[in-house]
């Protein structure tokens, strides 16, 4: 049975360099001396730390709890002592630090108590919470929390579940090896996902340069007896592994700019994610390790099953780096990003550590002006006009760049790859995108500031008015009182020759003022600020300290001549 396949726009055919790392089986990695596990490894909120320095943790114990409505938990990858919960350099181009848990392994590698679930008898919401707390995220590189994607759409079911085993990026073979060696477990994960999404059919897309993987998955499907799941070999063309591109190839659906595939009844997951869902459901094991390809400038490129938090240099040492190594790249040569150092940890997003050297990846030739040849637009798999976006990004005209659908760019690098002028187009697009995001953040905060400023002014205005009204009312009352008393006095002194109402009015006024002052004094004595009543002892202590400081303050102010 041959399935009709479709073509996506553009794409390129770089040298794949994949055979080098698929000759040997997946290998284990000896425990390193130290694991550095960043708490923020996935898209969404920063997990909060759940352990203290000095605490003993077991393998699989939760060390970072999911926070916010999109977030994913983080776990200890082995048993040992928490040495520190501190800022550490993260595997990110910026070289910035992030809150990480640093664990010194005790060598026992002892699991904590694991709890598994039966996905068929668990309500969907609980199942999603379980996967969130198991830290399962997309392992294709986007690290989007999987539980958030495991929701059937509005209709309560999905048409097609696409499983991404295309692995189009050169050098990377971790998905290939996973499908070769762990196909039946991965398939169980897929079956669970199909159940959660109520998907009608499942299509596993694999590039046809991985015949062993295709055969292995097909054999697993046959052995399991499942129906409605098909492994499809698709033509090798970068970036066939982009979600929208793979969906196009397998189903013919072209997801338009600014829309999501779920709007068309299709959802896409990586094969590695399917495997880790199996691990979580079947064994209760959270996501604490992943397959990582070590390739490039090493003597023995290979795939390893690596604990999250393992320093990259510890891993690369096993593959025999050549002496002229000058950089590590996380990911492949097309989309990968350069690491700020050699000892940054492997995280959930690390599908490959590409070891680089000046000979392997020479510096790009100097950029030349764009000749508007249109090659980039022909190669762009997202059907964009990269030269236009480049022009506007370069001149920092971000609004215009956005009009050309900048945010549909998947940063695949096809345009830079084909550009005869060697323009690093993707660098410009990344620059533009982050500028636009930062502007949006600024705009949000300045809008908030404006609202609060206007509200403060309004409040002050209102208070002023209320005060004025109160005063006016009081003055009116006083005047009335004075008038009645003033009228009474002349009536009483009627017999006298020339009664002077004025002084008596003044007297009455003075009496009134005195009465008011007396009243104010009494009030002041009675009313202490309300916020100092009924307080907790520590707040009382705080207030006592503040009072002491306040009493000391005038003396200090007197010391300083200009105060």
């Amino acid at each position, binding site marked *: 049975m041959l399935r009709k396949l479709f073509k996506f726009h553009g794409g390129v055919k770089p040298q794949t360099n994949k055979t080098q790392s698929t000759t040997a089986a997946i290998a284990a990695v000896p425990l390193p001396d130290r694991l550095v596990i960043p708490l923020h490894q996935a898209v969404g909120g920063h997990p909060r730390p759940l352990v203290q320095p000095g605490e003993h943790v077991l393998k699989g114990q939760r060390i970072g709890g999911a926070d916010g409505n999109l977030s994913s938990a983080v776990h200890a990858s082995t048993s040992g002592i928490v040495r520190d919960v501190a800022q550490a350099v993260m595997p990110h181009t*910026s070289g910035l630090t992030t809150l990480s848990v640093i664990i010194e392994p005790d060598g026992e590698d002892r699991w904590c108590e694991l709890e598994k679930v039966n996905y068929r008898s668990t309500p969907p919401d609980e199942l999603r919470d379980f996967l969130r707390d198991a830290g399962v995220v997309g392992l294709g590189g986007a690290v989007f929390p999987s539980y958030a994607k495991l929701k059937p759409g509005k209709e309560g079911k999905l048409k097609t579940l696409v499983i991404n085993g295309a692995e189009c990026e050169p050098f990377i073979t971790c998905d290939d090896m996973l499908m070769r060696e762990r196909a039946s477990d991965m398939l169980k994960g897929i079956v669970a996902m199909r159940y959660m999404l109520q998907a009608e059919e499942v299509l596993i897309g694999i590039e046809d340069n991985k015949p062993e993987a295709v055969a292995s998955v097909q054999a697993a499907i046959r052995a399991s007896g499942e129906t409605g799941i098909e492994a499809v070999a698709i033509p090798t063309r970068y970036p066939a592994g982009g979600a929208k591109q793979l969906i196009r190839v397998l189903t013919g659906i072209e997801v338009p700019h600014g829309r999501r595939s779920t709007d068309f009844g299709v959802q896409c997951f990586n094969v590695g994610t399917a495997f880790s869902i199996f691990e979580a459901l079947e064994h209760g094991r959270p996501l604490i390790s992943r397959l990582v390809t070590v390739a490039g400038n090493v003597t023995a490129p290979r795939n390893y099953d690596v604990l999250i938090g393992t320093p990259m240099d510890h891993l690369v040492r096993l593959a025999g780096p050549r002496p002229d190594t000058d950089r590590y790249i996380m990911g492949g040569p097309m989309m990968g990003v350069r690491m700020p150092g050699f000892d940054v940890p492997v995280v959930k997003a690390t599908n490959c550590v590409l070891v680089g050297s000046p000979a392997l990846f020479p510096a790009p030739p100097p950029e030349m002006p764009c000749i508007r040849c249109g090659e980039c637009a022909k190669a762009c798999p997202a059907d964009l006009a990269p030269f236009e976006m480049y022009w506007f990004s370069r001149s920092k005209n971000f609004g215009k760049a956005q009009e050309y659908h900048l945010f549909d760019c998947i940063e695949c690098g096809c345009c830079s790859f084909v550009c005869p002028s060697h323009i690093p187009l993707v660098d410009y697009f990344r620059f533009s995108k*982050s500028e636009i995001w930062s502007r949006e953040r600024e705009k949000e*905060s300045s809008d908030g*500031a404006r609202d609060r*400023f206007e509200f403060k002014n309004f409040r002050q205005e209102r208070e002023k008015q209320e005060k004025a009204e109160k005063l006016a009312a009081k003055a009116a009352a006083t005047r009335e009182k004075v008038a009645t008393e003033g009228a009474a006095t002349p009536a009483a002194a009627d017999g006298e020759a020339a009664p002077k109402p004025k002084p008596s009015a003044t007297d009455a006024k003075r009496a009134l003022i005195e009465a008011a002052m007396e009243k104010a004094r009494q009030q002041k004595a009675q009313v202490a*600020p309300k*916020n100092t009543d009924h307080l907790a002892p520590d707040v009382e202590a705080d207030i006592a300290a503040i009072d002491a400081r306040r009493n000391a303050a005038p003396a200090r102010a007197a010391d300083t001549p200009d105060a």
Partner: protein
Amino acid sequence: MITALLVMTGIALVLGAVLGFASIKFKVEGDPLVEKIDAILPQTQCGQCGFPGCRPYATAIADGEAEINQCPPGGEEGIRKLADLLGREFKPLSEEHGVEKPKSVAVIDEATCIGCTLCIQACPVDAIVGAAKQLHTIVAAECTGCELCLAPCPVDCITMEAITETVDTWKWRYPVVEIKAA
């Protein structure tokens, strides 16, 4: 004759009502130019421009009573945007109004604060929380860095701290590549 008069009066009344209704319904809120200028200003509300807040400054610019280069927090980019919007010439930031500084937030040293509420009254954007005789704290996310709370504090316990970059706010740099002459 009478019917003609009645018809005309009727039409006049109806049209008048329509016009009256339209003037209420489609009333332009505020001055649109002031809105546009205000949208460019950073809303720090610091008063360095010589006006009590961003909006008064926006009004003054719209009325032609102020130059466009008086807002230090907006910096050069802000001036450029104002120049674009108003079709005026770009000019560098006027020195008498201050210099552009890195964005900062105020921090209260809680061990020194005497709970006097003076800073709360000074803060234009309600970014300080606290009550009389209790410790005050600045809500960093809402502080615009205007520095107006520094001077009123009798014990000088407020300091400005520059905002450091985090992974969430990090930006890709503008690509620096040598350009070969064509």
